[in-house]
């Protein structure tokens, strides 16, 4: 006869690296709030602490080692890291939350150490499988990978999107600047996400060049997000200049939430040409903020967009440009896409994701 495990006093989280304005980091902070609301002591321990998390996260070396029945650990897995070793050494129940690992071949040319960490991340995923009692992933795509790797119990729990990203009101100064540019004419393309090779902003620029030439010579492209290493950012900047688009492409970098809200408020279309995404929270944010989405159908993007946007089978610049034209020149289609996007975004509402997370932890508590 099986009996439930004893309820632990604390469920702490381990994450390899944590930084402000990052989807997995935001998810981890929200998970901490939920674990605390369930009555657990819950702290976050990270091997690398980025800017903006001071006082909210502890160095991994400070992880307390309590008896196994008093402390469980939840590991946020998205990259290979020695942090996984600390997770495995733990004697209590181990839970894993999987956000996918970016394939090494997409990043190693730009950031060789990241390529090494990505390869390690996939090796560790397989090694962790027999040591984890309960695993969940933020998309069906990611969950399938967990199952393939032999994880025994796998559930889908949508990513806990930072409420500020969808609720913040536009910063008036940023709004005035963007609105003034909009009054000069031309549509606004937007992509939000790290400036990173696997997000392939250079492919958005190619499609944008085609669009400007053929449909809207005054169009602007806004690329919002902090850089993952300097090399890709520099390459993108040089590429934009070589394409003669320096005046039309805004490499905004990392921006405060109010400024991000202003970018969303003035965007006409959200375009995603990523080669790999484990979820892509900005797609949901765009849908929530009534922006039609045009995206290359790959990895978890297909599932995140669902029936709420236009999914493209490839990233041919002519096809992406033509799809954006459909959105921008057919008001009825725009209205339909906004409505469909909102329906899709509702599936990933923060409230729903919170309930799914609490349900997953509650289920893990019932396991013997």
């Amino acid at each position, binding site marked *: 006869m099986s009996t439930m495990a004893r309820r632990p006093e604390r469920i702490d989280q381990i994450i390899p690296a944590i930084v402000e304005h990052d989807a997995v980091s935001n998810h981890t902070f929200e998970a901490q709030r939920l674990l605390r609301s369930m009555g657990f002591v819950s702290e976050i321990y990270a091997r690398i602490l980025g800017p903006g998390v001071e006082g909210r996260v502890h160095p991994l070396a400070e992880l307390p080692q309590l008896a196994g029945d008093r402390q469980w650990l939840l590991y946020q897995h998205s990259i290979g890291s020695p942090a996984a070793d600390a997770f495995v050494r733990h004697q209590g129940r181990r839970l894993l939350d999987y956000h996918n690992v970016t394939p090494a071949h997409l990043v190693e040319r730009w950031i060789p150490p990241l390529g090494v960490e990505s390869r390690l991340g996939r090796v560790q995923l397989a090694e962790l499988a027999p040591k984890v009692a309960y695993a969940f992933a933020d998309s069906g795509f990611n969950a399938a990978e967990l199952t393939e790797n032999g994880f025994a119990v796998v559930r889908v729990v949508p990513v806990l999107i930072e409420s500020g990203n969808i609720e913040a009101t536009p910063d008036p100064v940023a709004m005035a600047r963007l609105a003034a540019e909009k009054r000069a004419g031309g549509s606004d393309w937007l992509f939000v996400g790290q400036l990173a090779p696997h997000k392939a902003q250079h492919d958005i620029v190619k499609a944008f060049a085609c669009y400007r030439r053929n449909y809207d010579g005054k169009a602007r492209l806004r690329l919002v997000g902090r850089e993952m290493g300097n*090399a890709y950012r*520099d390459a993108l900047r040089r590429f934009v200049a070589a394409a003669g688009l320096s005046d039309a492409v805004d490499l905004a970098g990392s921006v405060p939430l109010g400024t991000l809200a202003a970018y969303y408020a003035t965007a006409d279309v959200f375009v995603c040409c990523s080669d790999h995404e484990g979820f892509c929270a900005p797609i949901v944010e765009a849908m929530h903020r009534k922006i039609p989405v045009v995206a290359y159908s790959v990895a978890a993007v297909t599932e995140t967009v669902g029936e709420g946007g236009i999914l493209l089978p490839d990233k041919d*610049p002519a096809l992406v440009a033509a799809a954006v034209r459909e959105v921008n020149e057919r008001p009825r289609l725009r209205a339909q896409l906004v409505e469909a996007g909102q329906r899709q975004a509702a599936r990933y509402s923060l409230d729903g994701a919170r309930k799914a997370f609490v349900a997953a932890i509650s289920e893990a508590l019932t396991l013997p």
Partner: protein
Amino acid sequence: MTPSTDALDLDGVLAAATAEAAALRTSGRWSQVDDDRLAEAFETAATQALRVPALAERSTELRRIARKVLPAAARPQARRAAALADRLARIAFERLEHTIDRSRGR
């Protein structure tokens, strides 16, 4: 939410975009030449951007070696000599790049 518009025909939208993309290509308003031009521009930008960190990495390594082998008193002169050599190398490199660009007709 009450639907205020007709059902969204995503397949129809994709078909229309595909037809328009094909029209762009058959009319020559966007061609393989454009794809190749942008692909080459990005590759050039990538090569240039990736060279900078590689040079910085080498420079750090050289400094580390210099600290080991040079007496402290000789380091300022060595630093000045290295800076001069670096400047000359950059000028030579830029001239070489310019020559290559001209030979390619850019």
